[in-house]
């Protein structure tokens, strides 16, 4: 495929899941296993296509949009159907497709009551289109549509296959995110009319930026900020996250942590910063402070959790805090770090949720106290995997978690946009507290490992036959496990791809 002309490839890769979802709904519900297989097949084909795209992507021009499609869509409001892909979109797009495939594979064996694989898989595929679209849409309206599109399927996923408090959690998730994104829509419209160029094209708007008075930029940024910050989630907008994660079915949590949260940070980087640089510059210190609060705060909350899954959910708050810290740095290194953190967190936490899910399937509880340790004895392989991923998540070098965190702190030491002069001290403080956050992070993960993994299994599990990692789990986990290591050892895999694109972006930023 020639990345300059093969826009169709991206379109197909994007809408194949949607079509697949439609096809699935036509299958009779009785064909349970066939449906699950079909789900795998669809996502696999999609993933194959994405791999082809990744392969034929022209990395020498990673800074420019490739696989572009740009056709009129809603002429009345100049909205265009414009897709494209650059070094920033590619990794996230790839990750989305991969995770969905793995989730589909996982679903072939594991699906919480009330079953209904048809509905579940269709929703998942719909969700995939939404998520993937967000990362390749280069028209504000189109972006918004995809961004919002993810709400509905996720609402149903949580609401139908979720845990005991699913009603509460699903509605909370839906309304919370909706609330933010409507303000975002208002801000988009304000931007559109302020720019007065009759275009929603992200690239054009970025090139035109900065426009409008600082006041305008501040307000517009506030609107966009609300939308994305709730999605990320930035402290104190995070309270929907633990409930959603805890109640969601395993696959839901994986996709939620793996991709949905990333849409927020991606939005910041792709839209908020380049289009509203002045507003960004004004908000940066606040974002930084919130980010670091999130880091420390998330870690503290983790220490207080008694439920494994909820603990992991809160750990996301902390990790996304590092991502936001990178964004708050407003310089190339920071954005690189943020994007890397995005990917790393997606893989690692996604994997953690997989593990938590199968832990729940084996023990039928997620209470740390009830599990009571000894997992390394009961399920050696599983225990090792758990330790491995947990250690990756606490940011150990050589594994994916490290680069996002370290680079974020490193970038924050000398923030861009002239922030270094006015806020140098503040940022130094931020770095220090972020670093302290890493200690707390290590703290709760080690404590978790100690309470769940180590020691002798308590009586109630002693003669309980608990199956170790099964084949299907291996299949759906190995790619992630491998990626955790690969990204840790070859950060270039992501940093390298993004480099040129980030440079352009910061060019818009004037930083």
């Amino acid at each position: 495929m020639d990345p300059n002309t093969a826009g169709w490839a991206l379109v197909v890769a994007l809408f194949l899941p949607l079509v697949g979802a439609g096809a699935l709904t036509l299958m009779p519900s009785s064909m349970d296993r066939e449906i699950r297989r079909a789900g795998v097949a669809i996502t696999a084909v999609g993933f194959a296509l994405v791999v082809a795209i990744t392969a034929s992507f022209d990395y020498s021009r990673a800074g420019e949009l490739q696989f572009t499609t740009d056709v009129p869509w809603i002429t009345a409001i100049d909205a265009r159907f414009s897709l494209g892909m650059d070094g920033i979109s590619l990794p996230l797009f790839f990750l989305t497709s991969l995770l969905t495939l793995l989730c589909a594979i996982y679903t072939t064996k594991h699906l919480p009551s009330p079953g209904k694989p048809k509905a579940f898989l269709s929703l998942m595929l719909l969700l995939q289109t939404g998520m993937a679209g967000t990362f390749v849409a280069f028209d504000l309206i189109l972006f918004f549509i995809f961004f919002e599109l993810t709400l509905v399927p996720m609402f149903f996923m949580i609401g139908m296959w979720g845990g005991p408090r699913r009603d509460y959690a699903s509605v909370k998730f839906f309304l919370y995110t909706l609330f933010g994104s409507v303000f975002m829509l208002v801000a988009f419209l304000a931007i559109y009319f302020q720019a007065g160029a009759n275009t929603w094209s992200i690239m054009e708007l970025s090139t035109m930026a900065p426009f409008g008075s600082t006041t305008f930029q501040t307000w517009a940024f506030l609107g966009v900020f609300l939308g994305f910050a709730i999605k990320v989630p930035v402290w104190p907008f995070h309270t929907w996250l633990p409930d959603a994660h805890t109640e969601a079915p395993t696959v839901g949590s994986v996709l939620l942590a793996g991709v949905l949260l990333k849409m927020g940070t991606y939005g910041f980087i792709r839209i908020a910063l380049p289009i509203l640089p002045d507003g960004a510059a004004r908000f940066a210190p606040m974002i930084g402070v919130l980010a670091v609060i999130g880091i420390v705060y998330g870690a503290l909350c983790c220490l207080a959790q008694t439920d494994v899954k909820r603990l992991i959910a809160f750990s996301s708050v902390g990790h996304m805090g590092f991502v936001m810290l990178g964004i708050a740095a407003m310089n190339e290194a920071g954005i690189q770090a943020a994007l890397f953190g995005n990917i790393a967190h997606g893989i690692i936490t996604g994997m953690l949720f997989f593990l938590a899910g199968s832990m729940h399937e084996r023990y039928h509880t997620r209470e740390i106290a009830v599990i009571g340790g000894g997992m390394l004895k009961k399920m050696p392989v599983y225990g090792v995997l758990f330790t491995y991923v947990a250690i990756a998540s606490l940011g150990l070098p050589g594994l994916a978690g490290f680069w996002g965190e370290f680079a974020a702190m490193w970038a924050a030491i000398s923030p861009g946009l002239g922030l270094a002069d006015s806020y140098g001290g503040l940022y130094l403080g931020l770095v220090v507290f972020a670093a302290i956050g890493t200690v707390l992070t290590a703290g709760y993960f080690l404590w978790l490992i100690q309470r769940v993994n180590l020691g002798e299994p308590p009586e109630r599990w002693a003669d309980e036959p608990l199956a170790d990692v099964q084949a299907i789990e291996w299949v759906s986990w190995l790619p992630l496990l491998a990626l955790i290591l690969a990204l840790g050892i070859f950060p270039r895999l992501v940093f390298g791809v993004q480099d040129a694109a980030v440079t352009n972006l910061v060019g818009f930023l004037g930083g």
Partner: protein
Amino acid sequence: MDALLEYAWVVVALPLLSAVLITAVGKQLPGKGSEIGIAALGISWLLAIGIAWETFVNSPIEPLERAVDWSPLGGGFVFELGILVDGLTAVMLLLVTTVSFMVHIYSREYMKGEPRYTYFFAMLGLFTFSMLLLVVANNLLQAVIGWELVGLCSYLLIGFYWEGKSNQDAANKAFLTTKFGDVGLIVGVIVLSAGMFGLTDTPFNIIEINEAAFAGQLSTTTIVLGMLLIFLGCISKSGQMPLHVWLPDAMAGPTPVSALIHAATMVTAGIFLLARLFPVVAQSQAVMATIAIVGVITLFFGGLLALVQDDLKKILAYSTISQLGYMVAAIGVGGYAASIFHLFTHGFFKALLFLGAGSLIHAVHSNNISDMGGMARAMPHTFWTFIVGSLALAGFPLTAGFFSKEEVLAAGDIWAGAGFFTGSLVFWVGLAASFVTTFYMARAVFLIFAGESRSHHPPHESGKLMVGPLMLLAVLSIASGYLLTPMSPEAPNFETWLATPILDEEATFPFTGDGATEASPGTVTGDGVLAGAASPAPLAAAGEDGAVSILHGVPYWNLTKLAMVLVLFFSALFLAWRFYGKGLPERDPTLQMGGFSRALVNKYGFDDAGYRYIVVPVRDKLSAAATYSSNVLIDGVVAGVGRATKHAAVATYRVVDQQVIDGGIHGAAFSAAWWSEKLKRIQSGDVQKYAGVLVAGTILLVLAFAAAR
């Protein structure tokens, strides 16, 4: 000559390879994977020896740096993966591979029958790799990576027996304490690299940082802040007070691990890093003073703690803390070479002692010296090797420990001569501590080997695989000292080995001490037991303003001080013999003191006084106080911090998260519901009320319209 140095990366790669192979196929092999590890380390060891030789004989050499751009970091900055081979690297390579190799061989027998035998060797390989990665790092980021990885391995190996709660706690404690220090390290590295922005694309490159610092391109803030933060990392990693608390607990790990990680290599990483960045350290008097003081405190009180231990490994652990104190202190008083020299020799004899201890423990199935005794007969090889190790540790003349420790003292003396008060502090306290060291080692040796056996198991000598390493290490514990003695040539010797283009003979400290201005070279000439700078030449070259040169040149004999050391040594030895020579005293030594004092009345009153007014207070009161402060105060603080954090966590979660923030959301929802409840009452169902409201509304609106203009 570079031919061999080019292959330094192989030394690093082999242990990793062995770790991978062992994990992959180890279980299937007859030796359960140990043979892979031993083979790999053997090759690494030979290579390391070759590299050491190359760098030593040709010293001083031009450092060899090889790096690949590993990944862009954004902003045009690059993270490079590379090797930097100079004297310092070679020293560390040699030390690490040697000890690791020995430990591999030793463990093969020692760990026999362990359920996680293979895993153990894989971990050893991984650790060795990480340590070497840190050692050969040409940039700080890579060093940090190695640093963190050794921490992980340490965690995994301390928790090797993870069924036991105490071991788990020890592992967590070790990891978290060091991790806390890593905050300092990481931020410090970041600060330093930030100072390099604009100067280079590789802001972590060590050589560039050193040159920049020497050329004064780094702001004082950068240097002081950065180095102090990095030093925090060293404090935790190298068991300096008050963050040493994890090291004694770390003895929960298997003894070979203690020997390799918690005596010879990992704990010295901090000192290594300080030495690596010595050109930066040397820029700031404040930083050096801080380092020196921390070192002094540690070396003295750490030593005292060893006095009252019964667990042999704990004794060695505290002595390790104390010796690390010497190294740090040396850095703090400009003893760049001295510090590394002591690190080098200490690595050998402390590993020897630990492995010896392991051999003993293996024999009696107990860590406590009170369960040993009379082992000399049963375990002759262990016995004499242990003696050698102890002598070296105690600094008995002509052992390696003697030369290296005296180098440290000399450095302190020179520093004092240059008018820095920390110098004399290091000198005198170091001297006093050597007395303590001798005493507790002697105590241990007597209780272990002298008297009758108190063991429940009939002791037996360990097999060849365990004794062999002991012997080799014993030889090294003597020989390694001769790299820098009054007998050494001008070059090559240990000091020229460590010299780099920046730290050459001409290199001097940018600041001068108080008394140094009118000080002539002569007075600056330290007269330690072995004074540095026998020939005043380097000092003269160091400039007439009395600036102190970083390298001290070859030391020379100073018999008066030598006598003093010997007196200290033997008095300590004698005292120890008095109390413990006949095996473990049945009754409390203090009561025994009573009978002792009666003898003093008639002949030994001098001893008695010495005993009553020096030993008793020191051993019982002071050390007890120190123990208390360590085990209760500092531990208490650490534990307290832990508990406080937990409480804070719970509070934050319960109150802030669940009530304030979430409550706000719910509040909104509830208020909506509340309004809803109230508002729906308007829909009374009575059409005439509707009509009334309708008309009223209309009238209101009409009025509003009418009033609009």
